[in-house]
């Protein structure tokens, strides 16, 4: 997509975003609530029109050749939106019919997917009676009915139990292994970290960074961090420590721990000796590598826990 912009009156939801996703890639799209993730998916899948900009999927213009593009897409929206009054099997068959599948083909495929997703036992129960996890699984199964090569998954594991979420992650990963291109939005950083080949962070309608996990972490890993935990209280140690080691910055973490930050490689022994001289027993010393979560928080300025609570609160 190139320079994709979406405005709602004076509010700019997307501000000229440009990026591409390769065939067969598992692409993660991360950002705080209201950053423009769902708007991007809606535009690419034909549920919204951009104010300006262009986008192509598999060589087709998303806005001029919508029908061809839609045939290639499987979309899981951020809420399970199948028909409450239809049972699981009927829902899948209906979704297959929307893509022009013949009756026998769609019935066979529906049975196959119900088995893959472990939903055979509830196949004849109305969708409205499903648990959240089952609803999510059936919604993903529905998007696979016509066997699309490209999947858009908007928060597929939000608001469901841990076991179902894990199962769904495995299923999605397998789909990607089978060659499907996956475009995933999530606010579970560990999910993105585990599943995605490449990630983009979007904040206030702008892509702030994009790259593989290694690339995203690279800049942040230039800084070395050593964390020391002590058996007793450390008192006023920051200033003498920084005076003894001028190349470091000290971050005191409570009464019994501190972190040492440096742009240069750090040798553990001088620090141990320094603490030993001051009768401080080092209980634990460890090298801290910045996680994707820390990168996300630093880049977006959003506290993840707060974001999760907002999102899950909204869904329940």
């Amino acid at each position, binding site marked *: 997509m190139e320079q994709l912009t979406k405005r*709602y009156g004076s509010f700019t939801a997307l501000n000229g975003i440009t990026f591409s996703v390769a065939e067969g890639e598992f692409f993660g799209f991360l950002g705080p609530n209201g950053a423009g993730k769902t708007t991007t998916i809606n535009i690419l899948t034909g549920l919204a029109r951009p104010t300006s900009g262009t986008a192509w999927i598999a060589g087709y213009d998303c806005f001029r050749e919508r029908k061809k593009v839609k045939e290639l897409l499987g*979309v899981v*929206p951020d809420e399970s939106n199948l*028909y409450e*009054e239809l049972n699981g099997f009927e829902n899948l068959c*209906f979704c297959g*019919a*929307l893509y*022009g599948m013949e009756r026998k083909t769609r019935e066979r495929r529906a049975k196959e997917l119900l088995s893959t997703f472990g939903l055979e036992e509830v196949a004849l129960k109305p969708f409205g009676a499903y648990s959240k996890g089952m609803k999510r699984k059936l919604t993903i199964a529905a998007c696979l009915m016509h066997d699309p090569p490209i999947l858009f998954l908007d928060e597929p594991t939000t608001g469901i139990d841990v076991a179902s979420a894990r199962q769904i992650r495995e299923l999605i990963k397998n789909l990607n292994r089978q060659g499907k291109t996956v475009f995933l939005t999530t606010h579970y950083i560990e999910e993105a970290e585990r599943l995605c080949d490449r990630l983009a962070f979007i904040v206030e309608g702008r892509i702030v960074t994009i790259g593989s996990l290694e690339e995203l972490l690279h800049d942040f890993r230039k800084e070395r961090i050593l964390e020391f935990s002590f058996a007793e209280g450390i008192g006023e140690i920051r200033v003498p420590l920084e005076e003894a080691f001028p190349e470091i910055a000290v971050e005191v973490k409570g009464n019994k721990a501190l972190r040492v930050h440096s742009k240069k490689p750090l040798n553990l022994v001088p620090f141990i000796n320094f603490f030993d001289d001051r009768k401080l027993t080092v209980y634990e010393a460890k090298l801290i590598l910045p996680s994707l979560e820390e990168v996300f928080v630093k880049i977006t300025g959003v506290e993840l826990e707060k974001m999760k609570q907002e999102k899950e609160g909204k869904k329940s």
Partner: protein
Amino acid sequence: MKTWIAFVNILKKDMQSYYLKPPNISWGLVFPIAWTLMVFLKSPGTFDVRNLLPGVMALSVIFGTTSMLAVTITFERRSRSFERLLLAPLDLSVLILAKTGGAVLFGMVNALAPLLLALFFTDLSGIRWLSLFGALFLIAVTSTLLALFIAVSVREVFEAQTFSNFFRFPMIFLCGLFIPVKALPLYLKPLSFILPPTYGVDILKSAINHRSDFTLSLDFAALLVFATGLFVFSMRKVVKKWIY
């Protein structure tokens, strides 16, 4: 072929999920019986089933189509299941035709209930069946498209119900069902002329009782113009309001 499969299945699902539910079927039967009974009790001496039939049939169609479509579409929009349809590789016109098709059929079936009941009380010979079914179809199409316009204009189910009445009741009193158009005050006549049921009811009167205010060709032409205009208008509204 692919489009046809989608069209038929959307229509079938709507019929099964909404229109063929027992409350709707019973409503379709109770409404004409209650209406007929009301007119009979009011003036038993001059009561004539055949005179009453065009009005009851037209009302059945108008109420049947508008009450269901506006509500079901608004409901599907609220639950976001309508997005499923918008994500499918279908022309919007096909999707709209499939969604409205159920309401049109339901409206027409509703109108057959009073007709079948009338068979027990009066002789229905001499009815011009082709005109009658043509009128029923076009009344159903135009009132369904009006319901679609309502669905596009509101967000909540209760708004759809309120807005439907805002259209339906004035329409009933101005389209010549109770008061002939000729007898309406001069300032209300233009309103009557811009209502699709005015022409539909006129065809029904002509088909059943061989009396009419306008020529049959004018009635059909007007209904076709209304149907086409409303369809084009609704399509534009759908694109504008639903594909943000």
